[in-house]
């Protein structure tokens, strides 16, 4: 036998909850698709390593390339579903914590009419694995404009500051907001959100500040 043959008995409730939530349903399907693809590819790689070359074999790409391609495929599946399954509220993005590559952009817009502290967005951290993940703490160091101007007088805040444990197959929202002290120069500023505890996760953050 191969693979992880641990039963799922210890992993959750007696019967799985019905997936009435289309967002959760979409995420779950994408996770299963990615799981199937990864398992199939692992098996293939093991088998091909043990196979003698056919005499007709000619040039082949390095073995690692295909695994990377499949990883990209699996990520794409999850991201595609996550993109389709965005929660209805504007400014919310979903990101699998175990996937590499750039995640969807988080956007904050500070307009003239709303208070400077009013803009918020949500990042839904999704753990599609069978193991708990955590603690996780999102951070964003610096925001700058395309001409290199750094946005001073504003801090990106995350609520909660840290997610202690993200259980297997679950999602958790983190609210992203901008704390300001004083006036801000209008413009579009960008930075990078990273997560202490999820080294492969990174998301672009864009803050648009309208003139007063």
């Amino acid at each position: 036998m191969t693979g992880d043959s641990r039963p799922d008995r210890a992993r959750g409730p007696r019967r799985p909850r019905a997936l009435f939530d289309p967002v959760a349903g979409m995420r779950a399907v994408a996770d299963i698709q990615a799981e199937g693809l990864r398992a199939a590819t692992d098996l293939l790689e093991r088998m091909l390593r043990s196979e003698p070359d056919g005499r007709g074999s000619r040039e082949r790409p390095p073995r690692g390339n295909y695994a990377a391609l499949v990883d990209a495929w699996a990520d794409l599946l999850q991201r595609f579903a996550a993109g389709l399954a965005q929660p209805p509220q504007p400014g919310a993005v979903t990101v699998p914590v175990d996937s590499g590559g750039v995640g969807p952009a988080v956007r904050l817009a500070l307009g003239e009419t709303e208070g400077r502290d009013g803009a918020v967005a949500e990042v839904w951290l999704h753990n599609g694995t069978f193991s708990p993940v955590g603690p996780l703490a999102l951070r964003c160091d610096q925001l700058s404009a395309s001409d290199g101007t750094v946005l001073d007088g504003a801090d990106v805040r995350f609520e909660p500051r840290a997610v202690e444990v993200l259980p297997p197959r679950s999602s958790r929202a983190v609210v992203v907001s901008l704390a300001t002290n004083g006036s801000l120069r209008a413009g579009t500023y960008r930075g990078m959100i990273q997560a202490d505890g999820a080294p492969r996760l990174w998301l672009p953050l864009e803050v648009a500040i309208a003139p007063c």
Partner: protein
Amino acid sequence: MLSADGTHLVEAYSDDVSRLVRRSMLDSIPDGEPHRWLYRVARAYPSRPGKALRPALCVATCRAFGGSDGDIVPVAVAIELLHNAFLVHDDIVDGSERRRGRPTLTAEYGLGLALNAGDALAVLSNQVLRRHAGCLDEDLAERLLSEFDAMALRTLEGQATELGWRRDRVEELAPEDYLDLIMHKTCWYTTVHPLRAGALIGSGGDADLRPMVRFGFYLGAAFQIQDDLLNLLGTEQEYGKEIDGDLYEGKRTLPLIHLLRNARGPDRRALDLYLGLERSERTPAMVSQIRELLNAYGSITFAAAYGRGIAGAALDAFEAAFAPAVDGPDRDFVRALIPYMLDRRT
């Protein structure tokens, strides 16, 4: 989703090859005595129209790699004869009653004659292949025979594993174990070997056969998972076999493995009790109860999504495997098989 054009392409192409191969297959089965107890029995399954997926894949690949029908049809016939031999033996082992919409050989002729006819089909398959190999370049012939023998053994290894799981009530299984099983039991002879044999013969031995393993596995796994689902969800008229047959047999299909990993408490006890019974002791009410559990635990949804994830990679694998092939209807047919495997109802 498969378009109507895609379905038509696959079915029309398979029908053409099926006719070609069926004729050659029946020609290769002797018709002397004991006709009534051997050759008529052996002809029964090959005479029934089937999907002819394996020969169609083999012939299309050979053509796409530059070969002619004369080079490949005997190979496709050998594959299909062996497939028919496996079907006869599978039906005996599983105690099945219907095959391709009609009674199984066991149901019609009894176990002894059915078993013997299955053996005959396996012998004839080898005979057809070795006779054809004698007409090929020596090196190519040796490679073809070696491929065929390896495929047959892999299939038997997979079959033995599945039967062993049931005999010894192996229940601690993961989806990865299932994939390993179907790689041996189904994929090698359904997709991987037909692709490799077609490319080998079509290219005169020049083609790189390793990419065919990737493509064949993704395609074959999608085929088998859909087969598991059709056995639960299809209609007997379309599927040609008895619905819920896998459940009656306690076959470790992907939905059942998911259920085994997730069922709790009384549900798990009911499942254990069910799997501890012989097939003849399992009643329609018990099967309905297991069906209900498969629904309640999302096992069918899981299997469908798992299969789609694997099939998603088949397209890239196809492009890599068929990069040296000639554009045209043969290549188009193989490509169209990818969505067809997921959406087929038969």
